[in-house]
Every structure is written in structure tokens, then in C-alpha cells.
């Protein structure tokens, strides 16, 4: 169980990293992009808008925690 937990922690750290909020916001932005595209609405602009905001939020969180 400890090894399994360590394995899970390794992959969580490897993929998600220090700030899970980044992964959550990226997943949400991609989901909305896919929904808009499926509805026939131009959606290419959404991620370029969401990514700087996500980065800014993550930077503020990192600075607050230092």
C-alpha cells in the first residue's frame, strides 16, 4: 500500500506538479473549448485567454506561499 501510494504520489507530482489549480483550470478551459467547437462556435481564442490568467493566478498563489 505504501509503495502504491508512493507510486501515485510520484505520478501526481510528475504530471500535476506543485499547483493542482493549473491542471484543473486547463482541463476546464479545454472542456469549454470542446463544447463551443461541438456547437459550431469559433473557440480557438479561449485557451490563449485562459492560459495567461491561469499562470497569473498560479504565480500569485506561489508568491503568497513564500
Amino acid at each position, binding site marked *: 500500500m505504501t509503495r502504491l501510494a508512493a507510486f501515485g504520489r510520484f505520478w501526481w507530482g*510528475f*504530471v*500535476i*506538479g*506543485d*499547483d493542482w489549480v*493549473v*491542471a484543473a483550470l*486547463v*482541463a476546464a478551459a*479545454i472542456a469549454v*473549448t*470542446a463544447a*463551443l*467547437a*461541438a456547437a459550431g462556435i*469559433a*473557440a*480557438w481564442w*479561449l*485557451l*490563449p485567454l485562459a*492560459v*495567461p490568467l*491561469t*499562470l*497569473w493566478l*498560479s*504565480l500569485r498563489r*506561489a*508568491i503568497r506561499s*513564500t
Partner: protein
Amino acid sequence: MSTGDAFLVLSAFLASGVEFVEALTIVLAAGLARGWRSSLAGLGAATLVLAVVVIVLGPALTVIPLQGLRLVVGALLLVFGLQWLRKAILRASGYKALHDEDAIFARELADAQGAARLERAGVDWYGFTLAFKGVLLEGLEVVFIVLTFGSAQGSIPLAAAGAVAALVLVAGVGIAVRAPLARVPENSMKFAVGVMLTTFGIFWSVEGAGADWPGSDAALLGVLGFVLLFSFALVRVLRRERRTQLRTAEVQT
């Protein structure tokens, strides 16, 4: 070679170069403190494990439909890229200490010299494990980047060529100088890698989600320019903020 292919090779080269420099530091520390036999055995074993990962995952990725692959790879690269970019921006703005290969080498060397000696099959176990773990962890990032970049762009060999070029360069210089490559502009390289990963992540995530870029593949250049622009803007804003903080703290003391 298209613009996308050139970016692919450059991204794989830079990302792999950074990881290889870090792996070299650990292998050198293990070799100097615990003997080259155990360090090189660890390096060889980790390389074998990484080769197996590439052999198993490489062909598997090529059979996944391109749109689904780009969605997953784009999302992963975006999360990965934003992690790199966040650290690089925090370093560039003064909120986080710069990556110092000499200091890391000194710390690893001191730890390795102080550890107890335990031999298994004629190999010092600490030296072997240190080199094995270091190369495996840094190498996994290289494998991840080469396989995801290569498969989503439709050319794993091109991405691999970028990584091999970085390996030859870092290993060649490492063998020649036998010291950590502290002069490599690692902090700038990490910033560049963060920008590249984020750019490809945005581009492929949008395509994978079923949306179309205006201008098709040429939009990649526009995305790159945009990511560079907001990254530098964030560095500028945070650097100014940090300076003000430090000045205020100085006045108060």
C-alpha cells in the same frame, strides 16, 4: 523542414539539454564520491529502463488517432509547460533563487561522501542508486517530451534527433571538463522550454478539442509570440513588485 518541425527539434533539444545537464551533475557527484563503477552502472541501468519505456510507449502512441492524441498531449504539455514557466518567471523576477548547478553538485557530493558504504555484486549501492534515480527521473522527462512532442507532430524520430543532439553535446562537454556544466544558461533555457511547451500545449489542445486555428499551422508562430509577450510582461510586473517589496523592507529595518 516546416516551421512546426523546426520548433519540434529545437524544443526537444532545449528541454533534453536542461535535463541532461542535471543528470550529468548527479552522475559526476556519484562517480567522484563513490567510484565510477557504481555511478556508470547506475547510468547504464537507468538508460536500459528508459529504452524499454520508449520501445513500449513509442509504437503504442502512433496507433492512437491524431485528434485524440493531440487533445491528451496538448493538455499534458500545457500543464507541464505552465509548471516550467511559473518556476522560470519566479526565478527571473527574484521570488525564487536561481538554479545553481555548482551548489547542487556540492550538496550531492557532500551527501554521497557522508553515506555509509554497502557493496552488492561489487558495486557500491549508494553510488549506483544515486546515479540510477537521477538519470531515470531526468530521463523520464526527456522521454515524456520526446514521445509527446514527436507523436503529436507526427515525427518521433525528429524529436529524438533533437534529444540525441543534446545528449551528445552535454555528454561530450561533460567528459571533457569533468565538472558540472555551471556555465550553461540553464535558467534562460528553462524559460525557453516553458515557453515552447506552453505554446505547443495551447496549439494542440485547441486542435484536439475540435476547434480550428485561423491560418492553420501558421498560427503556431502567433501563439509563440503571444506566449513570449505575456511571459516577459509577467516577469516585468513581478520584478518591479519584488524590488518595491525589498526596498520597503530595507527602509523599515
